[in-house]
């Protein structure tokens, strides 16, 4: 038996204003998570390469733990679990940003680490032979090269953040996907709305990829010839 699905594309017109608003929140929370994860990830990566075994081990555990489980679990654990147990009341949006940040900082730590490891050892030697100390060598010689190596992977990670941010709608945020879910139950037009929102996410990802290509070209223009 088949039930005819009544397409009602007309609902998209009243819905679109709210979707724009949701998109803004998605972009804001993704950007916030990106900046925080980039920073925290760098700290974890540096700790991971510490000369102290205990510090290295702690960073290793951090990375393994936060890469082990899905974002879905962390969002619920932070928003309901921690909030209930410790009595911290995070807003859904804050809880979402925290979950995205810790999870992605673990991935970014590994991206940084492999990029730093990919810089030619001869660069360390050259800097040291000129009298650079470790910190100055890192700032002047090593990190600018590592960043160029890391950019493509970091951009992929940002794309993942934007896509995964839809998961935090589960705790009732007003991000793009949260708004869509509410509109779907109001208008009862899941096909139309989910299709439209798919185009929203797709557009954002394509714009990020285009910016990334531009950024990579700029960073490497003197390496290509």
């Amino acid at each position, binding site marked *: 038996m088949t039930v005819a699905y009544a397409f009602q594309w007309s609902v998209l017109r009243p819905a679109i204003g709210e979707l724009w608003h949701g998109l803004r929140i998605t972009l804001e929370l993704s950007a916030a998570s990106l900046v925080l994860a980039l920073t925290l990830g760098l700290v974890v990566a540096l700790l991971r390469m510490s000369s102290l075994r205990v510090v290295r081990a702690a960073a290793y555990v951090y990375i393994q733990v936060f890469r082990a489980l899905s974002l879905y679990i962390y969002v619920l654990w932070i928003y309901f679990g921690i909030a209930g147990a410790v009595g911290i009341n995070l807003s859904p949006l804050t809880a979402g940003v925290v979950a995205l940040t810790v999870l992605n900082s673990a991935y970014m730590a590994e991206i940084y680490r492999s990029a730093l490891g990919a810089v*030619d050892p*001869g*660069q360390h*030697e*050259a800097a*040291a*032979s*000129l*009298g*650079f*100390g470790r910190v*100055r060598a890192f700032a*002047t*010689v090593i990190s*600018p*090269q590592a960043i*160029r190596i890391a950019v493509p992977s970091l951009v992929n990670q940002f794309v993942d953040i934007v896509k995964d941010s839809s998961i935090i709608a589960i705790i009732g945020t007003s991000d793009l996907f949260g708004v869509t879910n509410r509109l779907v139950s109001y208008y009862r037009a899941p096909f139309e709305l989910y299709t439209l929102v798919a185009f929203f996410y797709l557009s954002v990802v394509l714009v990020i990829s285009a910016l990334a290509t531009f950024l990579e070209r700029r960073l490497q223009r*003197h*390496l*290509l*010839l």
Partner: protein
Amino acid sequence: MTDSIIEARGLNKWFHRGHANEHHALRDVDLTVQKGEVLVVIGPSGSGKSTLLRCLNFLAPPETGSVTFLGLTLTRENLPRFDVSARLAYEKRLRHFRTQMGMVFQHFNLFPHMTALDNVAAAPVRVLGMSRSDARARAVEELERVGIADKAKSYPSQLSGGQKQRVAIARALAMQPQLMLFDEATSALDPELIGGVLEEMKKLAEGGMTMIVVTHEMGFAREVGDRLIFMDGGHIIEQGAARDVLADPQKERTREFLRAIL
């Protein structure tokens, strides 16, 4: 000439590649270089030539022995492990030590994200604390000295091997070192580019620079070298005046090596 600039005593260096595979790269090496002298180091690959240079500037600290350079003695043992302020003081001395000892590498090791000019000016600014404009003026001077001031704005990827190595020499010279270490500086170059770089090294030697040159260029060794060391298996097998050793080696192992490469 009794004015020694660098003295190494009892250097031993092991490389560990897992438990069972330990490589004794440098065995009880003693070395003295006089001010203004050009010491040439030759030997088969894996004989410890490069390791010797890396021990002298502590890029690869020797497990035993000491290096005395400009009145400062470094050993591995006097590296403070737990006292943080003593450790920082040690590292400061080591950095100063290295600023006075320029090194030129086989694979250039230029900083790929900087122009030729910035490659040369970077350490004077970041390490010596010179102003940017003074450092750039000095960098231009050094690039002129090695004949590539016209490439100042080029990135390493835009330069030929010979030009890269000249920039690397200028980069080391910009620190105004007392001693220059050359680690097979022409081994990675196209044959037709080798002569130009050797010419720069020769000019430097004639200008009175003290140099330790690891090389396979026997013509250069004979012409520019004052003294020569032949190494094999981490040992110094034979040493003497460069022309004498090359013309009339005393040890069978040296003869064998020279026969094979000439």
